[in-house]
């Protein structure tokens, strides 16, 4: 009778390697499937104290700040995950706090972070107060940089609608050496609270021209395009209402407004796509084919705008 050699000994090492290597991927997938189940608190911040993280950094503060900044971006960028949470961006302010405590020199973190925090849900955290606190820390660390008080004024103006605080912040910014001359005028206009939407447009235009970051420029471009869309639609609605009042019905197409002398041309949206017109109810809207990423204004400007048109064109 042959003495039995254990079967495993007959397997060549290459065979064992191939077998094990082949099994790793399916096993990992099985482990991942377990991880994919919703946990009790998926939005967990292991270290919430910036001072503690700084102490544990062992001198590698800069690298840790970069890692936390990337984490903050991923946290902010994963919209689908945020939507599933009870509070979508609960830890965003704390993450940004850790980044700026580890490395107070990262000026763009204060700037971009304040926009992430201020934008209303679902685009941002909807926490403009936290954005102001973040910018205040930035201003304390970089008192010579006019962009931070400028951004603070912007948050007060646009997201909190506190025009006086906005004006004060811009006034502070305008007094810093190197600040552009238009800041003082902006501060004055903010403080007087006059021509709100005009100031807003000017602000977004300045952001579009002066922001060094592509994503901030893109946001400003979207905002300006959205205001343009609102104003186009309200102007067309205003003209359609006057047309209907005079003739008893809405025109068959928007060209009817040109023939009646209300407008010189039919506007298209900022991406060059014509607006949709429903002649049965006289409603105009943004086409589904538009490339404009429309963001609604945080407050209703429609009635004020139409009243302005009525004043300009006469009753």
């Amino acid at each position: 009778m042959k003495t039995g050699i254990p079967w495993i000994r007959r397997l060549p090492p290459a065979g064992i390697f191939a077998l094990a290597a082949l099994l790793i991927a399916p096993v990992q997938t099985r482990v991942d499937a377990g991880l994919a189940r919703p946990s009790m608190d998926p939005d967990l911040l292991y270290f919430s104290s910036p001072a503690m993280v700084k102490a544990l950094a062992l001198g590698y503060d800069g690298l840790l700040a970069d890692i936390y900044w990337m984490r903050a971006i991923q946290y902010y960028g994963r919209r689908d995950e945020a939507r599933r949470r009870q509070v979508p961006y609960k830890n965003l302010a704390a993450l940004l706090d850790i980044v700026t405590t580890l490395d107070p020199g990262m000026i763009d973190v204060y700037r971009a972070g304040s926009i992430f925090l201020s934008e209303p849900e679902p685009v941002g955290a909807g926490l403009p107060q936290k954005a102001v606190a973040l910018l205040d820390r930035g201003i304390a660390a970089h008192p010579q940089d006019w962009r931070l008080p400028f951004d603070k004024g912007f948050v007060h103006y646009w997201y909190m609608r506190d025009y006086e605080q906005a004006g004060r912040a811009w006034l502070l910014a305008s007094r810093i050496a190197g600040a552009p001359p238009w800041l003082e005028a902006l501060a004055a206009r903010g403080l007087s609270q006059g021509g709100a939407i005009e100031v807003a447009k000017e602000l977004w235009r300045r952001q579009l021209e002066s922001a060094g970051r592509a994503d901030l420029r893109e946001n400003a471009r979207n905002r300006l395009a959205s205001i343009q869309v609102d104003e186009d639609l309200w102007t067309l609605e205003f003209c359609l209402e006057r047309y209907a009042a005079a003739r008893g019905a809405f025109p068959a197409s928007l060209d009817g407004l040109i023939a009646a002398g209300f407008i010189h041309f039919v506007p298209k949206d900022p991406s060059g796509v014509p607006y949709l017109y429903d002649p049965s109810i006289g409603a105009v809207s943004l086409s589904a084919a538009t490339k404009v990423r429309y963001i609604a204004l945080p407050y209703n400007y429609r009635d004020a705008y139409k009243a302005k048109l009525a004043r300009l064109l006469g009753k």
Partner: protein
Amino acid sequence: MRLIAIAGNTFRENIRDKILYNLILFALLMIVSSFLLGQLTLGFEDKVIIDLGLSSMSVFGTLIAIFIGIQLVYKELERRTVYALLAKPVARWEFILGKYLGLLFTLLVNVAVMTAGLWLTLAWHGSAPWHAYLRLLPAVYLIFLSLAVTTAVALLFSTFSTPALSALFTLFLWIIGHFNADLIQFAKIARSAAAETVTRVLYYLLPNISNFCSLDSRNVIQSAAYYEPVRAAAVGWATLYAVLYCAAVLALAAAIFSRRDFK
């Protein structure tokens, strides 16, 4: 001359240990990170490359300093090669100093090649003018000083302890060395005079690694990442501290080694 011979031999031994393989790892890390991190971060691409480069330089260097440093003397004793060496007209302090200088030279080559790798990555991927890269040199120099102190501490343990314990001791001292400022803080709030004295003594006794991490309350790697200049006098004081601390630790190591009986 004998010192140089021992140092040269230690360097050759380290090279034979394939210690420079970590440079390939470093180069790969730099290339891959410059590709990937640019996608992950929002701005700060230069800063991320510099932070990662200098931090890796420090971490890799510290690991080499600890894991080679702890074996420097122990390996010679284990292989009994030390007998052949000490039978020749070589003083024991010369043996210790030669070993130390040999490892220090290995670390210098490491740091120099890593710096060149970091510069190449920045030249290829970065946005600052080339002369800004010279601003990285003070940080590289201070990292080297911290490695010099860590190596001296590792060598000290190597003269009387086993490699495993020496590695633990050195690693703990390296970590504690980052928290020395807390010790002095503790001394200030301590209610008993004895506790205050003990903490004060410990403060000066333990290696103050944080001296090489921040100058004038500013993190050295962070200053380099923003291409900020550092004060030459502050670098000078850190250098003097490193020289004095290494001298004291090496003298202690030589004294312990001289008293060892190799029968």
